[in-house]
């Protein structure tokens, strides 16, 4: 029986950390108290993507979109909206000054999005297999089992021109056909859910919001390539995704959709979860396979490629979460349908995690070929706090920056690479005028150095050398020769490193040297940090005409460096100041400034 209303509560990690679970329970309690449980169903869904405004509660069918909800608001939503029919206007999302009664379609954040991967996130209860089935779930596996040959499946993927979403963009059909064509009785299917790229969380949200889609896709690959076992390698840092995957696997087994003789066919397939143990390099496919085998996660030279020799030296299809999530849709709607979306070079959609200095952080899924300007300004609402856009970083520690001059570039795999960055897993970190490019680049190198497994020397030694040079530059100890040195080391690493980590680790430097050489020169020649970030090159001061002597900064200062009588102008002792910035953050009168 369909209900009169559905109340959807976001159950993604972001909203859960803001007490979404308590909101969910309070909503249910309120429904019981009002005696409307027969008419209203409260559902905990996956991530809505609009994390900036969380926790989010959505009411169907009127599509009311409540934001920043607290557990205390739950009762009011039920008694006012669902019993009396009056929306709780103070909680409704305010669409830029217009009327408050916003429907989801009116919200600019969602208008340019096109959801394939995130089709079920924020729509269904991920812990209920029936809801997935009601949205055509497991229909694709049925079609593959009874209506399609393995070659048909490969053909469909070839028509779709789907490319791997983990970063490198390798054609998925080709990967599958390599494994399919090897004569071997034992083969494996692996889902790479070791999402380690800092600033990217689409895989986590997909697993939390729609775990069955991954299980279904892996089963399809198993049937197509002749594998009967699968592994999901997932980060231990994602406890909620792990829990929902386990529930999904259990339900799928009960429904005969996983295990022996799936849907009564002669095909058997099952999946095992393996938890990562905190090593970024395990996102590299050969390192991931070593980790599944219980060893240190060190990459192996390729070839042989995993498609031919993977886990336990057996042919292995390995794809990333986002790639998997596309598969059931391609099977059901066809490769021709899929290939109409996107650009010549890249088909379909891409999920981006929009973070950093952006007004609306969150997860967005857009057709390939959408411009950066549309993503950052139309969907993301522009730069937070009225600051000036400086650059967007894509591709994580393997990528580079893109400046304002290129905001109108339609993004796909090819265009990002030609701009000196890369697609990577889809992290998009927005930087404003307060971010120092040299400092952020040092941050990325620090990451790559720490996560280098140490097996090959170009990465182990080259990365460390690059980091040391950057560190000197940010301390005002750089020399002009450093720029040439960094380019030389970087190029050597790109050519000689064993795996993607070392080959791409210099990219942040090479890319920023290209677009922001001035900023490097300011640090090296003038010993100045234009953004006011690098500690050794800045000092904190108080403006006499703005300070009213409220003593707030002096009370917060951890080293007692700020002195001054009440209602008198304060001053900072440069010898005691540790440049922590607490005074800048505390002052309500903009009296603290950085030089």
């Amino acid at each position, binding site marked *: 029986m369909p209900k009169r209303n559905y109340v959807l509560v976001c159950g993604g990690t972001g909203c859960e950390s803001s007490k979404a679970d308590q909101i969910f329970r309070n909503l249910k309690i309120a429904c019981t108290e009002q005696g409307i449980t027969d008419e209203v169903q409260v559902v905990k869904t996956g991530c809505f993507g609009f994390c900036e405004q969380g926790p989010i509660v959505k009411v169907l069918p009127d599509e009311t979109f409540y934001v920043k909800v607290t557990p205390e608001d739950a009762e009011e939503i039920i008694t006012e909206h669902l019993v009396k029919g009056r929306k709780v206007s103070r909680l409704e999302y305010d669409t830029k000054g217009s009327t408050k009664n916003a429907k989801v379609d009116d919200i600019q954040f969602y208008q340019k999005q096109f959801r394939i991967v995130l089709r079920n996130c924020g729509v269904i209860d991920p812990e209920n297999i029936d809801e997935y089935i009601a949205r055509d779930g497991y229909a694709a596996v049925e079609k593959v089992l009874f209506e399609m040959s393995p070659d048909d499946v490969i053909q469909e993927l070839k028509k779709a021109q789907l490319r791997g979403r983990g970063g490198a963009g390798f054609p998925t059909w080709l990967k599958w056909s390599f494994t399919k064509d090897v004569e071997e009785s034992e083969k494996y299917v692996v889902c790479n859910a070791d999402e380690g790229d800092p600033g*990217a969380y689409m895989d986590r949200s997909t697993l939390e919001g729609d775990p069955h889609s991954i299980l279904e896709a892996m089963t399809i690959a198993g049937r197509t390539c002749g594998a009967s076992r699968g592994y999901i390698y997932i980060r231990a840092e994602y406890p909620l995704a792990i829990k929902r995957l386990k529930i999904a696997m259990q339900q799928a087994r009960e429904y005969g959709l996983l295990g022996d003789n799936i849907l009564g066919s002669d095909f058997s397939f099952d999946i095992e979860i393996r938890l990562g143990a905190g090593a970024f390099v395990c996102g590299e496919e050969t390192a991931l396979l070593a980790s599944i085998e219980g060893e240190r996660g060190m990459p192996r030279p390729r070839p042989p490629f995993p498609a031919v020799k993977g886990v336990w030296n057996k042919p292995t299809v390995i794809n990333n979460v986002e790639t998997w999530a596309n598969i059931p849709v391609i099977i059901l709607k066809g490769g021709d349908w899929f290939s109409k979306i996107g650009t010549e070079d890249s088909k379909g959609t891409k999920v981006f995690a929009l973070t*950093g200095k952006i007004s609306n952080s969150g997860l967005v899924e857009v057709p390939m070929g959408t411009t950066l300007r549309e993503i950052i300004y139309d969907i993301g609402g522009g730069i937070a706090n009225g600051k000036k856009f400086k650059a967007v970083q894509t591709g994580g520690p393997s990528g580079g920056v893109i400046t304002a001059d290129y905001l109108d570039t339609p993004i796909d795999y090819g265009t990002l690479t030609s701009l000196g960055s890369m697609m990577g897993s889809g992290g998009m970190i927005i930087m404003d005028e307060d971010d120092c490019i040299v400092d952020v680049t040092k941050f990325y190198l620090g990451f790559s150095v720490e996560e280098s497994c140490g097996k090959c020397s170009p990465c182990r030694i080259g990365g460390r050398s690059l980091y040391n040079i950057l560190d000197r530059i940010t301390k005002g100890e750089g020399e002009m020769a450093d720029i040439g040195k960094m380019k030389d080391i970087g190029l050597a690493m790109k050519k000689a490193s064993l795996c993607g980590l070392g080959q791409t680790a210099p990219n942040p430097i090479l890319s920023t040297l290209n677009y922001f050489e001035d900023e490097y020169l300011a640090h090296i020649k003038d010993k100045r940090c234009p953004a006011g970030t690098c500690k050794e090159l800045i000092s904190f001061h108080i403006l006499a005409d703005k300070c009213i002597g409220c003593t707030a900064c002096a009370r917060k200062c951890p080293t007692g460096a700020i002195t001054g009588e009440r209602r008198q102008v304060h001053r900072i002792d440069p010898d005691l100041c540790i440049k922590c910035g607490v005074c800048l953050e505390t002052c309500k009168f903009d009296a603290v400034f950085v030089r």
Partner: protein
Amino acid sequence: MISASEHKVDHLMESLKPGHEPDETALFPVIDDIITSYHGQGGALIPVLQTIQNMLGYLPENSLRYVSKAMKIPFSEVTGVVSFYSFFSTQPRGTYLIRVCMGTACYVRGGNEVLEAITRELGIRVGETSDDHQFSLEVGRCFGACGLAPVVMVNDTVHQRVKPSKVRELIAQYQQAAAEKMEAAL
């Protein structure tokens, strides 16, 4: 995740003494059960170690030596795996494990300043545990809560949009909880 029989685990947990390695007569039977539960699965070393660490909070040396012997894997290989993965710790951790996210989104929104403030407040550096065994400090590589940056995780609780000026309050909240626990125990 604990696959050993419950009474053996209870016995082990009761026998634990702070500052000492677990008692071997209580520990080894539990490890045996854990290893048996992964019997027949390839690459079981990492899941076995994860299960032990989840139970004890760290991997004491005697547990590693026993795993090596029971699984017939050289001790050097076991410690190689343990030292490679940042999840594993051979040192006991404090009651509250504070992990400051150092993903890019948190970094550009001031994660580093938050880390510095916590370091100052607790007087310990990253990787260390406070003398009273209450707090351990670590950095994390992106918890995937980038929309709420900067983020600090204390055990399983995510604290969002943390500011350096709010750190003192945050720590005090846990110090108070710890003190109350102590009082209740006395």
